[in-house]
């Protein structure tokens, strides 16, 4: 209800930029709370309300079914608080309210992740998420402090990132936002948190909270005209690495939620690429391309906020019935849970940018702005770099196809691979309604992509910093009609009214093999994983035992291992050495009064000496 009312409110007040001053009512320290709402935040409030509506419909049966591991009162209050905090972050225009809402958002989301009170893995995930968020928060706070000392103002309007003295805080701010959004190399917390959280929460975190970080980046750096080429190129490279890294790791995961979590990292990378291209175009004074890539960034945000929650909610629906999300235990869902499987397929098509769904427009704007940069840029090195980025994006697209074919193919098609997957039934009505709502939103915003883009453009224009129109001619619509029309025609012509025989699947002439003989998640990823084995640290060891082991094996054991290279070589030593340093320092606090008196004496002597020197 609250979500809907926020959405309606945002819709009714469309077209203005308004400031609501609550400074007399609520005070944070010396500065008051003031909320500034423009069309961009309104747009995202509408989006948030769609998402929350879906989640609100979805949650009751989910909590009922998982009654043991959740306290529903706590869950609902946390959810509403998170909603309020995210709206607050979107609408705050000064540092103090931003920080307050940001921390509120972080803390509520952490408690929601931790709300599933079972198991050590959840504790671990929560702890990792907590530390990542805290580090992000401290980076942002540090950036704000430096900015305040530079400009003596806490209001965002007074911060101009094109000035040289603001580059350092810009870097800090960028790092903070990147940690929150899960950009490489700070992405390691993300799969843990999304996997551990309940599916509706993962949907909200991935669908909306990461967008809040990215939107803040757009507001600060694109609207604030960050003008440092080093930082811009750094952002661009981070974006490219993130998208490739994310999708590569998504392909080799075997848990549905982890696959989708890693693919979120990829999408964040794409958004970051568009943001940095927008900044770069501004730096090179190419306003048309700047506008185009800003639209790309916002479109990617909006559409990702629709199809990613859809995928997570599908996972939740499967988890409710099967109690597992391991791909190797699923299979044959399409027959038992047709609606969930259908929505999963729609979401997967959307994320792989099928041209009639909503994943495509954003990606097209991104490609187009890169292409126009190639044509407009003057430096050969830059042009080569942009061409290389386009190629990498094409490879990322191909990897996304492989990833989601694996996800859908192994989970939904074939035979059930375990007992649990054999006895599935379709989820309750409310859950289906939520899935349909999001799937329809995906389809409509894909087919009416032009209108959606129009709305986005106008909202960006009202938000100020948007000069002139971009050169947009989204090409998809006519092709869509041809595609959908002819496929229906063929289906009707050849299949709809025709009978068929059934037989068992071809097994080289043998009888029906065990369902375990179907392709597994690991074996689907194997050919690609082999190509990228240095990055993935991929190992595939087969041990065959038996008397004459070549021809009559008694036991075959295949072990596939993938190590996250970043966690192993960077984060583990870092955490380890921090822990050791902390231990060393903690020896100072020995609990003995004598020692403390010694410290006091030493400090006094040091101060006296200092006084003498100065």
């Amino acid at each position, binding site marked *: 209800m609250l979500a809907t009312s926020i959405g309606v409110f945002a819709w009714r007040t469309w077209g203005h930029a308004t400031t609501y001053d609550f400074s007399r009512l609520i005070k944070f320290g010396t500065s008051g709370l003031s909320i500034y709402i423009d069309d961009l935040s309104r747009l995202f409030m509408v989006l948030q309300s769609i998402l929350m509506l879906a989640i609100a419909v979805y949650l009751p049966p989910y909590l009922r079914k998982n009654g043991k591991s959740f306290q529903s009162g706590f869950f609902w209050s946390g959810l509403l608080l998170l909603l309020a905090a995210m709206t607050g972050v979107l609408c705050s225009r000064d540092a103090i309210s931003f920080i307050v809402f940001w921390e509120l958002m972080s803390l509520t989301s952490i408690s929601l992740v931790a709300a599933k009170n079972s198991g050590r893995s959840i504790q671990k995930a929560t702890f990792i998420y907590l530390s990542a968020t805290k580090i992000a928060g401290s980076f942002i706070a540090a950036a704000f402090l430096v900015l305040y000392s530079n400009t003596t103002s806490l209001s965002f309007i007074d911060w101009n990132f094109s000035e040289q003295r603001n580059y350092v805080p810009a870097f800090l701010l960028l790092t903070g936002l990147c940690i929150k959004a899960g950009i490489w190399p700070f992405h390691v917390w993300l799969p843990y948190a999304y996997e551990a959280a309940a599916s509706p929460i993962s949907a909200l975190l991935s669908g909306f909270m990461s967008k809040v970080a990215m939107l803040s980046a757009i507001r600060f750096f694109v609207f604030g005209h960050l003008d440092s080429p080093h930082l811009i190129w750094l952002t661009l490279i981070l974006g490219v690495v993130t998208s490739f890294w994310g999708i590569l790791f998504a392909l080799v995961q075997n848990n549905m939620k982890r696959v989708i979590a890693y693919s979120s990292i990829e999408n964040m990378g794409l958004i970051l690429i568009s943001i940095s291209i927008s900044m770069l175009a501004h730096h090179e004074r190419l306003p048309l391309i700047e506008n185009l890539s800003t639209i790309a960034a916002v479109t990617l945000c909006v559409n990702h906020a629709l199809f990613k929650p859809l995928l997570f909610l599908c996972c939740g629906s499967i988890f409710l019935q099967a109690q597992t999300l391991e791909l190797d235990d699923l299979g044959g869902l399409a027959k038992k849970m047709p609606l969930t499987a259908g929505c999963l397929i729609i979401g997967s098509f959307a994320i792989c940018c099928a041209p009639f769904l909503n994943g495509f427009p954003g990606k097209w704007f991104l490609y187009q702005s890169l292409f126009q940069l190639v044509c407009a840029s003057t430096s050969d090195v830059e042009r080569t770099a942009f061409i290389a980025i386009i190629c990498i994006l094409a490879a990322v697209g191909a990897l996304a196809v*492989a990833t989601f074919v694996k996800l859908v193919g192994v989970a939904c098609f074939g035979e059930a691979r375990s007992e649990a997957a054999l006895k599935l039934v379709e989820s309750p009505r409310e859950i289906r309604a939520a899935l349909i709502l999001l799937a329809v939103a995906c389809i409509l915003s894909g087919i009416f992509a032009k209108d959606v883009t129009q709305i986005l453009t106008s909202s960006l224009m009202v938000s100020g910093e948007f000069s002139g129109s971009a050169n947009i001619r989204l090409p998809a619509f006519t092709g869509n009609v041809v*595609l959908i029309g002819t*496929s229906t025609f063929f289906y009707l012509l050849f299949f709809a009214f025709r009978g068929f025989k059934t037989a068992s699947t071809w097994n080289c002439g043998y009888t029906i093999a065990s369902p375990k003989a*179907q*392709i597994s998640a690991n074996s689907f990823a194997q050919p690609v994983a082999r190509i990228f084995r240095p990055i993935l640290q991929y190992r595939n060891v087969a041990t065959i035992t038996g008397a004459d082991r070549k021809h009559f094996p008694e036991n075959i054991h295949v072990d596939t291992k993938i190590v996250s290279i970043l966690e192993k070589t960077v984060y583990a030593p870092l955490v380890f050495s921090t822990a050791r340093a902390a231990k060393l320092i903690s020896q100072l606090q020995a609990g003995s009064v004598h020692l403390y008196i010694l410290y006091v004496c030493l400090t006094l002597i040091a101060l006296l000496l200092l006084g003498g020197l100065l």
Partner: protein
Amino acid sequence: MSAFAIWSTFMLSVVLIPPLCSGLIRKVKARLQGRIGAPIWQPFFELYRLSQKRETLSQTMCGFFRCSTAIGLSTTLTLTWLLPWISIKPWAPDADLFLVLYVMAFEKMVSMLGALDSGSPFAAFGATRGATLNLLVEPAFCLALLAIAIANGDTNINQIFLNRGIAGGAQAVYFFSGLALFFISLVELGRMPIDDPTTHLELTMVHEAMILEASAKNLLLLEYARILKMTLYWGLSTQCMFQLMPAFHKYSGLQQEFLSVCGIMTMACLVAVGESLLVKLQWRKIPEFAAYVMSLSIVSAFAALAGKRL
């Protein structure tokens, strides 16, 4: 030419060229092996026979498979509108290069999912190999088309090929892109030296393994979509090569059309000769092949950049 003549020529090309192309390959291969071989219109009979059969589906399938074959063919038909594979086209929509890229990706995704629907491990192996090949050549394909787009400063590829009179530097771009597209087609269509379309060894095949469960009308749609896709690739490559001939644009529409068809048939003959002479590459060597193709595309892209500079 009148509108009616243009439409009918286009429709006839879509219907006739793919089966003839496939028949020609078989004929040439048979001749090279010392056999007489079936007549080149044999594929028409085969397709007709498939349309008359009754389907057998796997018990495991859930209905997606039947949709996937229909979607697959219609996506390929959409591509016939989007790609400049032949000179005469009654209607050229906004065929953006990136749109083409994702329509193709969609088609592949649907066909791979269709393969997984039956739960057959062989089909699934085919699908995972298909996904890998797709990953290997996707950047090369994108770059080959991108190079042409950069040389013309436009991403609408239908428009690009209608442009008369290209700058001198752009000829290298068309040559290398055309070459790259031809080799990419070998990978994408699973022809030699990547995959042997005539073996029937479930464990090694790519495309043939993916369609293992298809029969009758399903198989008809899949086969037709495949030969149509083959024609599209070779047509695209041919059009690139024709851009090298300044005289090409001076011909009338029908002459251009005739030349285009001849070009596609020449490519078919080349493939047939290649398939008779070459042996299949080991699966692990395929990334190397993809790297050669990629380097062709890179040369083309650099030529485009250099041309831009002049």
